[in-house]
């Protein structure tokens, strides 16, 4: 005898279809970001930065930690990428700490020109301020709706 109830799978699939489409879209975005991060992680510290660090290491006001690192870099014992990847041991840690403190001491209150938003960033297709506002609004509305469940 055939069951009285229809096969539920078709009805369930229909309900799940929009979610499936969204998760597939997310899969594509995750893959795109993974590729982006792989490229970013494979990048080395550029020549502009390397030259700047070498120049700074020769400055009389440079900290000892920078001088020691610069000598190790010249000797081929480590690279500036190791330093920024936090793989340069105590000297690397001390240098970054010195550098961050120096930057903050002398530039925290300085006026600097704003960074340009590149085409690559704009191509992502979002405006951070709009997203932040949308999420704040969504959360407030959702919070109110959820509260009604407990305080109808």
């Amino acid at each position, binding site marked *: *005898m055939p*069951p*009285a*109830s*229809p*096969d*539920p799978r078709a*009805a*369930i699939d*229909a*309900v*799940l279809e*929009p*979610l499936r*489409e969204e*998760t597939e879209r*997310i899969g594509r975005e995750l893959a795109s*970001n993974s590729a*982006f*991060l792989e490229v*970013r*992680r494979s990048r080395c*510290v550029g020549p502009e*930065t390397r030259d*700047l*660090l070498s*120049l*700074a290491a020769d*400055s009389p*006001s*440079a900290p000892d930690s920078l001088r020691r690192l610069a000598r190790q870099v010249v000797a081929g014992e480590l690279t500036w990428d190791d330093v*920024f990847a936090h793989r340069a041991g105590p000297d690397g840690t001390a240098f*970054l700490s*010195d*550098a*961050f403190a*120096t*930057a*903050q001491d002398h*530039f*925290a209150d*300085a006026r*600097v020109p*704003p*960074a340009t*938003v*590149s085409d690559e*960033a704009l191509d*992502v297709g*979002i405006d*951070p301020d709009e*997203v932040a506002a949308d*999420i*704040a609004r969504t*959360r407030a509305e*959702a*919070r109110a709706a*959820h509260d*009604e*469940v407990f305080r109808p």
Partner: protein
Amino acid sequence: MSELQVEIARLRAFGAHFHTFGVGNVGATGQATRVEAGQTADMDGLLDIIAPAIHETALVFGDHYDDVAKVVAGTGAALVRTADDYAKVDHAVARAMDKEAVSVGSQTDAAIGSGGPWSEHQVPASYHDIDPDPARRIRGGMDADVRAIDWVFHKFTGHHITEPIDAIVGNWTTLTARGESWADVSRMLRAHGDDVLANTANVDGIWDGVAATSFHEYGVRLGNGLHAESEVPLAIQHALDQLAEKWESLYKQCVSLLESVIHDVEIGAVALAAGWWCGVGEAVAAKKCEEALVAFYRAYKIVMLVKHVITAADLAVKGFQKLADLYHLATHVPEAVDLEITKLTDLVGALGSTPEHLDNLSHLGDTPMTAYGGPRAPGIA
């Protein structure tokens, strides 16, 4: 000895079991659904988007399972009343026959089949634990790194590095836990279906005739319907798991993107320091912050993706509510039962003693006429 094709005492016993099974075992399903699967007090942040739907869907299905329980319990009550009616007929026939002949034999029902004993499974629903703060574990290292250099990024871009990840508020493991509760509900329904089918077969072994055949068809429909029903909570679990899984993946990738931002900004901060030590470096800092913005924008896009997937899951959970009334567990038993009643009535009538209680023997026939509609149909309570 009964002239009817039924073991009346055992039919009555099965009816009582069916009733108890419906009230107790099946009856626990609705409350478990509302209490465990519908729990949303631990959901906040972006989870507020989907929490009302989870709660409402649990209420809808919980009430629906209450109806199913009433159908099962009502089926048991109908079987008991049917057994009583058979007994009255049996008694009337025997009394009529006594007028013409001396009765011989015992008063016990003749064994006519191989119906086994009542069987039943208990599937408990339980509370499922959540990870109290999965996000902290993922972003802990990033938070430590960001403190010393966030001001650099803010100075050049007007943004704070953790803005995107700070917007993704909510513990996605609550979704996984609720999904497990829905899986419990699915296991309960499947077990109920197994029990209905097994005990329908048992009843079949002690009851023959057209009415018994009708009940058998009804029982098979009920059991198969419960099996079909068990697919829906599994699908709800799937939807919640999908959301939790994607949320976690997106969260992790958002942190990875922000770690890329931090890497660039750290170089920028060092460039600023170098500028103090050797007079140049501000331009390099600005350039690194500009490069960092690409990953930062991608991180912000993830915030929108999280919102969109929650919204899609919310629609799915709401969509499942419509399935609560999709299935018809039993239909149109009355015709066959009516035929059996007619035969019984004719038999008793020919003997000059038609009890009034036979006027409406079709208790089973009034069972579910609409989707799980037994409780709403006359004769089932």
